[in-house]
């Protein structure tokens, strides 16, 4: 480049008016190269802004996102800003050297915040359960650490066993380079559709299951099993449960997200281990991590293996009411056989409530004995099976009073020991002895004080459709029903629908981030689906008889989970009483925190005013600053380069037109149909697509002079003009003083100053829809500040109606539109051309709302008369569709 600029300088310094044909040709080529750099800068600029707005969206919580989103977007924004800086250096070699330095600093900072320090880890592959306590959570996962603690510290009965550690997990992953491959697949799915996510989840799980275990890991597991056989007898079967690191902390309950295997024989332990590890990538677990901002790589799967208890009965104890933070009763759900069916919600379960007296359990205050028709039991060889329960036994309570009180005593004791409410899974063995299987903190929800009462004349009474048995998660919500029966139904589940299912199966949890409410026929409030519903704040009613038959998909329902009632239609009186309080679940999560930290180096804009002395390369503190700085400077460089040299083809020409204003044009590349030797250019010789469209709008409706002004308006203009010298129309810079177009065939940048008003329009309109854009800034204007602000709002408001993204900062309006076909872009440019001419003095009449509305409707009428309404309307519809599509994409 420097060689070239030397040549150019030589030409310029000669001040020769005549260039040889060869020299002129070479100069044209130089201009072309320059313009290409400028175009590459603009395209990188656009891309960078687009990514920044995506990051801002994620910050607002418009989508769940994982580390792959963060890594991909931070990398992409850095690459594009670097391209901006490189092309800036092409346009003005060496002039803004500081940019490289600033960029490097910012980028290194981002990278440091993005790549977190890895936690140190242990070196033991397998621990006997008897050696485990809660200080070892980082090696065995919190679930198994808790179970170990129950045994080693509290001397409570738990089955003997061992834990396959996080170190073993890391060895397994590293041995096969699994994390790298998984990250690659996750990145590839960033734009994926829901059905692709199902297959992605299946593929990753297959990848893990097919991978080889390192030999030492295999040996350690089999040795531990041999030790267990010595203790429990040959052929002892085990239950295998996931115990992930980072699982089960109080605010993020992973309850049942992962796979468990019951009654596993020694031949299948290794296979089952891999399957449980693979379930880290089950769709529901992956979606859950994504929606809660949990770092994928920080979850290491440990697996607890415990001698299998052939349970007579089993279930779950909550040391407090999970639905009401003020209720300290102990709640016990119980079934015949293994506790599995309480957890997965597949069978109706008995429900017992025990009151508290100080730190002791009081008495049994509620017995809700269900008819339990089936139970799960162990097969002799391996696995579990569903068995019918004999009729009379099905209706009997699955626990004795003694057992209920003993369970309550254990719950109170554990709560006291851990200092927070607990969720305990247990079994009663064949001798009637209670054995604990799991224990973790319980998430309680607020509960609502006020119950809505259905009075006789209440509209809600007429609309009452169904009544359920149990509040699984509190709240009121409405939406169209969607009945899910098969797995594949989940693919079609619409955003904001009410999920209706026969059973409260864990697999439906993957839909909860999109569901308005949940209704099931069966299921336990202690089950996984209920846990996740509470965490996501999605109202849920269980035990709604015949729900899947009586409710048709598509029918709008209102679900009041607190009264367990389901109404037809939207019952506004109920909905009105509930604040929409869907939490931004990402906030505060590890992934969100990283996003927040890195975005501080990307998003904030400090260089606002190009006229300020602070507007310098070395003052760029964020990638946005660099982007903004370079955009401004690149336009200036393109402008002055064209202005200053003596190559008449590229000097500015005045446009010959009927409008009594001066319009100057600089041809950047191929903006003229043929070369123009003189000082003037005719419109017929302009080939710039965006400029012609803009011009059409500028000239479409003759401007009728300033609108009639009331005296106050006029006074305000006079006062402001005399008080503020910056508003003097004779600005020092020529660039700002006249109306200047810089054009090429597909590009145009207009900077114009009509009296007190300053606006810029910049547009790229070509054959690549994804690169097309129009941006519009509108600022200044006489009249007092209040009126200028109103005018800016009026402009922004109109542009938004027509599909632009617009915002107002103080008295300036900014609007952008991008990504549409040429035809659509042209219509919007026409609209801008019109606005440019006709809103410029509106603030004079905008002293009252009546004239505001009047002018707004006149502007709308004009716009519709000059643009193609089909296209403009389509554009708006596209905008909406695009928005909806993005939202959907975001959720994935």
């Amino acid at each position, binding site marked *: 480049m420097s*060689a*070239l600029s030397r*040549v150019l300088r030589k030409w310029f310094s000669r001040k020769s008016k005549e260039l040889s044909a*060869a*020299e002129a*040709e*070479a100069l044209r*080529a*130089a201009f*072309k*190269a320059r313009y*290409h750099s400028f*175009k*590459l800068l603009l*395209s990188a600029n656009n891309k960078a802004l687009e990514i920044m707005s995506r990051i801002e969206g994620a910050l607002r919580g418009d989508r769940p996102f994982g580390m*792959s989103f963060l*890594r*991909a977007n*931070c*990398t*992409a924004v*850095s*690459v594009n800003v*670097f*391209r901006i800086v*490189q092309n800036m250096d092409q346009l003005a070699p060496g002039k803004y050297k500081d940019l490289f330095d600033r960029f490097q600093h910012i*980028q290194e900072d*981002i*990278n440091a915040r*993005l790549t977190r320090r890895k936690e140190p880890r242990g070196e033991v592959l397998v621990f006997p359960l008897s050696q485990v306590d809660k200080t070892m959570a980082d090696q065995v996962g919190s679930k198994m650490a808790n179970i170990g603690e129950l045994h080693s510290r509290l001397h409570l009965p738990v089955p003997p066993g061992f834990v396959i550690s996080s170190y073993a997990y890391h060895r397994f992953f590293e041995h096969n380079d699994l994390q*790298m491959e998984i*990250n*690659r697949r996750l*990145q*590839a799915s960033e*734009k994926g559709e829901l059905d692709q996510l199902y297959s992605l989840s299946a593929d990753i799980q297959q990848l893990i299951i097919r991978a080889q275990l390192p030999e030492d890991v295999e040996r350690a597991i089999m040795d531990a099993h041999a030790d267990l056989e010595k203790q429990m007898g040959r052929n002892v079967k085990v239950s295998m449960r996931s115990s992930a690191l980072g699982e089960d902390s109080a605010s993020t309950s992973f309850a049942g997200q992962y796979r468990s295997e019951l009654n596993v024989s020694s031949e299948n332990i290794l296979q089952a281990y891999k399957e449980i590890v693979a379930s880290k990538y089950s769709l529901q677990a992956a979606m859950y991590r994504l929606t809660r901002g949990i770092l994928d790589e920080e979850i290491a799967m440990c697996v607890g293996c415990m001698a299998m208890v052939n349970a007579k009965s089993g279930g779950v104890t909550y040391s407090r009411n999970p639905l009401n933070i003020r209720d300290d009763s102990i709640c016990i759900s119980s079934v015949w056989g293994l506790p599995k069916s309480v957890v997965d919600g597949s069978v109706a379960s008995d429900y017992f409530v025990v009151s508290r007296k100080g730190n002791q359990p009081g008495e049994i205050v509620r017995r809700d004995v269900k008819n339990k028709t089936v139970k799960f039991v162990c097969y002799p060889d391996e696995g579990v099976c569903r068995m019918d329960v004999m009729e009379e036994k099905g209706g009997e309570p699955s626990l004795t009073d003694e057992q209920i009180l003993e369970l309550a005593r254990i719950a109170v004791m554990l709560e006291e020991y851990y200092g927070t409410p607990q969720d305990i899974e247990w079994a009663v063995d064949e001798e009637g002895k209670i054995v604990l299987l799991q224990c973790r903190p319980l998430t309680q929800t607020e509960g609502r004080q006020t119950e809505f009462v259905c009075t006789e004349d209440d509209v809600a009474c007429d609309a009452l459709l169904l009544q359920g048995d149990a509040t699984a998660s509190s709240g009121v919500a409405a939406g169209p029903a969607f009945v899910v029966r098969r797995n594949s139904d989940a693919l079609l589940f619409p955003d904001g629908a009410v999920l209706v299912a026969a059973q409260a199966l864990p697999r439906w949890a993957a839909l909860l981030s999109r569901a308005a409410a949940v209704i099931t026929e069966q299921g336990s409030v202690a089950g996984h689906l209920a846990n996740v519903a509470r965490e996501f704040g999605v109202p849920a009613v269980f035990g709604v008889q015949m729900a899947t038959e009586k409710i048709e998909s598509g029918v709008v329902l209102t679900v009041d989970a607190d009264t367990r009632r389901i109404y037809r239609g939207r019952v506004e009186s109920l909905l009105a009483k509930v604040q929409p309080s869907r939490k931004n679940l990402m906030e505060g999560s590890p992934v969100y925190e990283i996003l927040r930290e890195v975005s501080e180096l990307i998003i904030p804009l400090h260089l606002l005013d190009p006229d300020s002395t602070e507007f310098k390369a070395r003052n760029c503190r964020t990638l946005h600053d660099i982007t903004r700085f370079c955009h401004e400077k690149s336009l200036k460089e393109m402008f002055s380069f064209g202005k200053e040299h003596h190559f008449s083809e590229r000097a500015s020409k005045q446009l010959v037109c009927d409008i009594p204003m001066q319009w100057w044009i600089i041809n950047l590349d191929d903006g003229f149909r043929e070369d123009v030797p003189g000082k003037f250019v005719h419109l017929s010789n302009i080939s710039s697509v965006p400029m012609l469209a803009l011009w059409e709008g500028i000239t479409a409706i003759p401007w009728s002079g300033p609108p009639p002004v009331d005296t106050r308006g006029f006074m305000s203009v006079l006062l402001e003009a005399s008080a503020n010298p910056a508003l003097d129309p004779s600005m020092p810079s020529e660039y700002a003083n006249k109306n200047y177009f810089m054009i090429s065939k597909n590009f145009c940048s207009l900077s114009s100053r009509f009296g007190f008003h300053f606006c810029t329009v910049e547009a790229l309109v070509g054959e*690549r829809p*994804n*690169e097309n854009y129009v941006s519009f800034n509108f600022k200044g204007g006489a009249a007092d500040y209040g009126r200028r602000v109103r005018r800016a709002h009026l402009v922004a408001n109109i542009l938004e109606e027509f599909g632009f993204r617009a915002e107002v900062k103080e008295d300036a309006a900014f609007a952008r539109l991008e990504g549409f076909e040429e035809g659509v872009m042209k219509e919007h440019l026409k609209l801008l051309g019109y606005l440019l001419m006709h809103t410029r003095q509106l603030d004079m009449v905008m002293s009252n709302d009546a004239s505001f509305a009047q002018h707004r409707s006149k502007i709308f009428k004009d716009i519709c008369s000059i643009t193609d309404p089909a296209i403009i309307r389509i554009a708006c519809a596209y905008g909406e569709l695009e928005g909806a599509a993005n939202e959907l994409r975001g959720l994935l």
Partner: protein
Amino acid sequence: MLVDAFSVLLVDDEVEFLDTLLKRLRKRNLNVSGVHSGEQALAFLQAQPVDVVVLDVKMPGMDGLETLRAIKKSFPLIEVIMLTGHANMEVAIEGMELGAFDYLMKPMDIDELLYKLQDAYKKKALHERRIQDSVEGVLRGKR
């Protein structure tokens, strides 16, 4: 300048991905070839230089950055677009500093890749043109 009259070499060890991409780009009438490693890419370029190379970052043997370095050394005018399934900021910026035209992430839109290829080729053509002009200028000056 005929926008599509240029040649492209794709370098990617992922056979399936490469074949699909070759097929799709050929459907768009692009003169495009494919090889599976950095070493093969260099050998290919010795025999048959192209205008633009699309280079996977993570490959066994010579990785993308090494290959990029070697290409820029032997064929400084060839434009190189980096392509990766593993977003990595440091690698990305290092590649850009080594003179890569851009760094794209898989999966990318096929049209977006095509536009990048066109832009990269245009940059190369303009660059060559300017070198030619300045050489001629120097020669004229000597005369």
